């Protein structure tokens, strides 16, 4: 694209971009998020391109030569969020959403839908006997409010023209030409946009603090180091609508007079890195990043910094240290990042989702923003829903939506019709919510009151078969591995907690250890240096509070009611039910089962490795886990 030198240039390109999209007879959007790509969507894209006669590498051009002979546009989109059903293909203008698409389905899609506008029924989503041709009507989507993720899945993620056609950089235009930096800060401040990275700190307040520092060199940093197990909100935005986040950063930079910014993104997100690189290069070409943006006199440069995958680098001071080339370790505060952040200069540090909220607030105003969500937590929140739930995926709902709505209305309930047991919210730093919390509104303050936190928005759903002690052990193992090792409570304390939890799930636990576990947890929470350390014990403390009986069962009775803890479980064959078919013995990988045909078999407990293959294969249900 030619460099845009003025607001008028941008309007003209936007008009052309919109015309181009509107002029298409048919738009085929193939999900190229990480999940669908793993499911083979690149092949679907290539096949579709060849069927429609599109050159996958072609750049977008406007004018008469742009019109495809058949008016068909094949685009790689970002994540739709309905990952359970991927690979996904959306076809406009019909809004059909095809699920679990394979390359072999492309011919039929082309012939039936692209050429004749009819849906391929077998690829549509259906639930309880109802088939949903339009994506928006599928219950998974119908109950959501997709504002940040609005364009994810609906636009091509590798073309800036696609973003421009869907209001991209409109808010930047408004900020640069209709607002002063202070007015921008005021709108964000009044909107009470709270940081989506976990803490829920007021974004506008942060910007205000940076703007009033005496030091004039300032930085804008975007935290894309999403490290919670099971969280992929930020990844989806970076992959699916990178320009929205970049626009948010540009507006922040304008507001606090910063001229340089960094996106810190984990190296484990190669697709996000590549989409961001493309987006930045295209925005630079278009003159939306660089010197004298759109002739406004405002200049901004943006760099990508790849993190090496340390969870702790999501902590602000560790993140800035990592960008500086230092070891990613949090430092003591004060001074805070707003005073002395990156390279010791005042720094606005927000996460991806927070920046992606900014353009729509600038466009629609703070009053509009307050109509969404709750009074103290306005707006929406994206959640990555994983675990034992039917519709695994990425959703966006207004703040204050209850867990029940998310799990049962959007998520389609617990897998296999099992009972809900708990949800781990906020990742390894968060806490556990249980069935009595299903109607707690999910917002920053309600969760804090519950001893949990929204975190970046990971929801791991657990059913009745989940052992909560093992869950606590899992998270403690994660935290210990990811502790930077700087402060004593986090480095040694989490290790001692992990050892105790290992003892408990291994059947060696004592009641004294249970008290010690709690003592350690409380001490770490009070004394650790950084947010990661202070919250490291939360999964243990919250499960210990709610599921103490399960812990005690492990310790006193050496029993794991879910059978998850292998050291505590044993398999026995009921002599009454066993018919002596020998199937169990044939399936046992270690030869622990023996017996004579047509008489009850027995398990040698000293050889048994508790894999459960016998119970899974017994045709008579004669083998039980105890």
């Amino acid at each position, binding site marked *: 694209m030619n460099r845009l030198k003025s607001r008028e240039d941008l309007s003209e390109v936007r008009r052309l971009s919109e015309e181009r999209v509107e002029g298409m007879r048919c738009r085929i959007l193939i999900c190229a998020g990480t999940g669908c790509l793993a499911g083979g969507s690149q092949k679907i894209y290539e096949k579709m391109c060849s069927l429609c006669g599109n050159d996958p590498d072609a750049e977008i051009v406007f004018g008469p030569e742009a019109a495809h002979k058949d008016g068909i546009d094949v685009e790689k989109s970002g994540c739709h969020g309905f990952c359970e059903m991927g690979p996904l293909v959306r076809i406009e203008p019909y809004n059909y959403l095809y699920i679990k698409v394979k390359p072999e389905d492309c011919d039929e899609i082309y012939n039936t839908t692209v050429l004749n506008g009819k849906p391929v029924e077998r690829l549509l989503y259906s639930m309880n006997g109802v088939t949903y041709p339009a994506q928006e009507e599928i219950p998974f989507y119908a109950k959501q409010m997709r504002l940040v993720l609005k364009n994810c899945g609906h636009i091509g993620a590798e073309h800036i023209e696609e973003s421009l056609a869907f209001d991209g950089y409109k808010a930047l235009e408004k900020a640069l030409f209709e607002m002063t930096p202070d007015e921008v800060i005021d709108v964000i401040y009044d909107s009470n946009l709270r940081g989506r990275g976990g803490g829920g700190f007021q974004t506008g307040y942060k910007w205000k603090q940076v703007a009033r520092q005496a030091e004039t060199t300032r930085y804008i940093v975007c935290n894309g180091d999403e490290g919670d197990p099971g969280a992929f909100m930020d990844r989806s935005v970076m992959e699916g609508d990178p320009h929205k986040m970049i626009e948010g950063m540009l507006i922040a930079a304008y507001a606090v007079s910063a001229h340089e910014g960094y996106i810190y993104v984990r190296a484990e997100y190669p697709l996000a890195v590549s989409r961001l690189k493309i987006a930045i290069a295209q925005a630079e070409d278009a003159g939306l990043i660089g010197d004298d943006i759109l002739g406004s006199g405002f200049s901004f440069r943006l760099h990508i910094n790849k993190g090496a995958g*340390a969870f*702790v680098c999501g902590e602000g001071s560790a993140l800035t240290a990592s960008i500086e080339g230092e*070891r990613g*370790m949090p*430092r*003591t*505060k*004060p001074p805070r990042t707003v005073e002395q952040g990156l390279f010791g200069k005042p720094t606005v540090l927000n996460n991806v989702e927070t920046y992606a909220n900014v353009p729509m607030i600038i466009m629609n105003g703070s009053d509009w923003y307050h109509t969404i969500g709750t009074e103290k937590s306005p707006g929406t929140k994206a959640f990555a829903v994983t675990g034992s739930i039917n519709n695994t995926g990425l959703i966006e709902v207004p703040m204050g939506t209850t867990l029940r709505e998310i799990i049962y209305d959007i998520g389609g309930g617990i897998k296999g019709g099992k009972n809900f047991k708990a949800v781990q919210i906020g990742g390894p730093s968060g806490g556990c919510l249980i069935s009595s919390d299903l109607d707690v509104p999910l917002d920053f303050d309600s969760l804090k009151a519950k001893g949990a936190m929204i975190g970046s928005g990971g929801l791991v759903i657990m059913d009745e078969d989940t052992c909560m002690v093992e869950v606590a052990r899992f998270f403690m193992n994660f935290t*210990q*591995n*990811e*502790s*930077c*090792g*700087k*402060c*004593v*409570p986090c*480095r*040694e*304390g*989490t*290790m*001692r907690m992990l*050892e105790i939890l290992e003892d408990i799930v291994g059947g060696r636990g004592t009641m004294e250890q249970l008290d*010690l576990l709690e*003592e*350690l947890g409380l*001490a770490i929470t*009070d*004394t*650790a*240096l950084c947010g990661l350390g202070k919250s490291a014990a939360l999964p243990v403390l919250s499960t210990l509070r709610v599921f103490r009986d399960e812990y005690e069962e492990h310790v006193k009775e050496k029993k794991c009611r879910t059978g998850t803890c292998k050291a505590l479980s044993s398999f026995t064959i009921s002599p009454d039910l066993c018919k002596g078919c020998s199937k169990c013995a044939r399936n046992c990988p270690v030869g622990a089962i023996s017996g004579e045909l047509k008489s009850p078999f027995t398990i040698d407990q000293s050889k048994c490795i508790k894999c459960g293959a016998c119970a899974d294969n017994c045709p008579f249900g004669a083998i039980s886990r105890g």
Partner: protein
Amino acid sequence: MEYMTIDGIKVPIEDEKNILSLIRKAGIDIPTFCYHSDLSIYGACRMCMVEDDRGRMFASCSEQPRPGMVIHTNTKKLQQYRKLIIELLLSAHCRDCTTCTKNGMCELQSLAYRVGVHAVRFTNNKEELPIDMSSNCIVRDPNKCILCGDCVRTCSENQGIGAIDFAHRGSKMQITPAFGANLCDTDCVGCGQCAVVCPTAAISIRTNVTEVWDAIEDPKKRVVAQIAPAVRIAVGDKFGLPKGVNAMGKLVKALRIMGFDEVYDTNFGADLTVMEESKEFAERLKSGENLPLFTSCCPAWVKFCENRYPEFTKNISTCRSPMSMFSPVIKEYFAEKDKEEGKETYNVAIMPCTAKKAEILRTDNCTGDRQDTDIVITTQEIIRMIRQVGIKFENLESEACDMPFSMASGGASIFGITGGVTEAVLRYMSPEKDHTAIENIKYSGIRGKAGFKEASVTFGDRTLNIAVVHGLKNASDLIEDIKAGKAHYDFVEVMACRRGCILGGGQPVPMGPATRTARMDGIYQVDQLSSIRYTDENPLIDHIWNDIIKGREHELLHRNM
């Protein structure tokens, strides 16, 4: 004046940058492992946490004092947490206290006692890590490391080297040279400042006490001790004498009791250095070549320059250090007698310095194939030896060193402090030799604790521009300025350790503010009380010069390059 309240005590806020300093001012010795006033705030040990009147807890080292603040340093909760933190440290720490080199001096041990840890409820499951014995100066035992990071910050912030840093995460974190290399394969200069700040024995002095006892026991060896200027004022307080007191006489007596054959004063070597280095300086001033002249007394500095600024090694004086000048002179002095008696002279140098242990092995400090100094032991090691013997050091009668190396100038005695070498050289070069001349040099700006000092001294029609730096980071900054053409000097004195040898890596620890001041005062007092202040007035020099050195200056007194 504004105040805050600490444990009910009203404490005025002056220029304290953190609450911890204010707590100490209030007379409360709040425990900490990782806080050092001359290093950056690290905040990792969490021992200095305090509680405010709203129950909020924070580390006092990293919080700024605010007027009206009310804090408590010793609530029940804090006591419990401190105990638990020590317990956690001990849970991952080698607990062979009774056989540890730091036994009785270990800060972890003493704090465990102080906060009342009587049992550790955790087993130590930590994998045993290899001990790094590769350096000639210091030993690194990662099994005793509590990861307070004091050594890391000392090495990078004060010394500008960064030979060690953190590696790995979580409970696997270690302090190690990059890529797990041995210390001898890094830029480590052996200054031992890391060992000075180490609260445990994770970094300790490489000890050579056994070799010295073996030599003393060997009838074929003439064991000669020489005592460096900074040792005498640091040795006494470990035996109950006042800090900084000159205990030279008692030390001489102790060494004789222990069985040393001859006891000499390294200050005699320093007088030789003053003469040789002044001559060299005068020659360079005349020729204008290789200026500024850098001093060469400090082996850690010489190594640092070779590692980091090889292009400046030609500027370093070719003079050996006082110890390394003195040793060959001693060996030459006894050469004939040794032959007659069938003995071998064995030079033991008692030094405030760990880097000297490596200096003696350098081939440029040997005379031909002969290693001139046989062994170096530090002040800490000589204290240990005195204790081994059970000598009541504090009650000893003072004795003088043996002739003919018992006399030295006051100028030589201040070699142990920053600016001292410069002062002695200037005294030697000064055409005036009266009290006023001494005072003029003293107040020229080369004394004091500032890390970088400058002076201009005029002798006749020549003005000499002089810089004095201590701490290798300061040296590095100065060289960068010289390279950039921003600074021009004729003479630059560098000492690797801050304040010079009085706070050397081999000196007794801890070296708190009171100790520092006392040692500084002590060493200047030695000069003040010397009957001769100028090297050129030392009556013994001429005699030795004519008998031994004359014509062999370069062989015996200079590094053979």
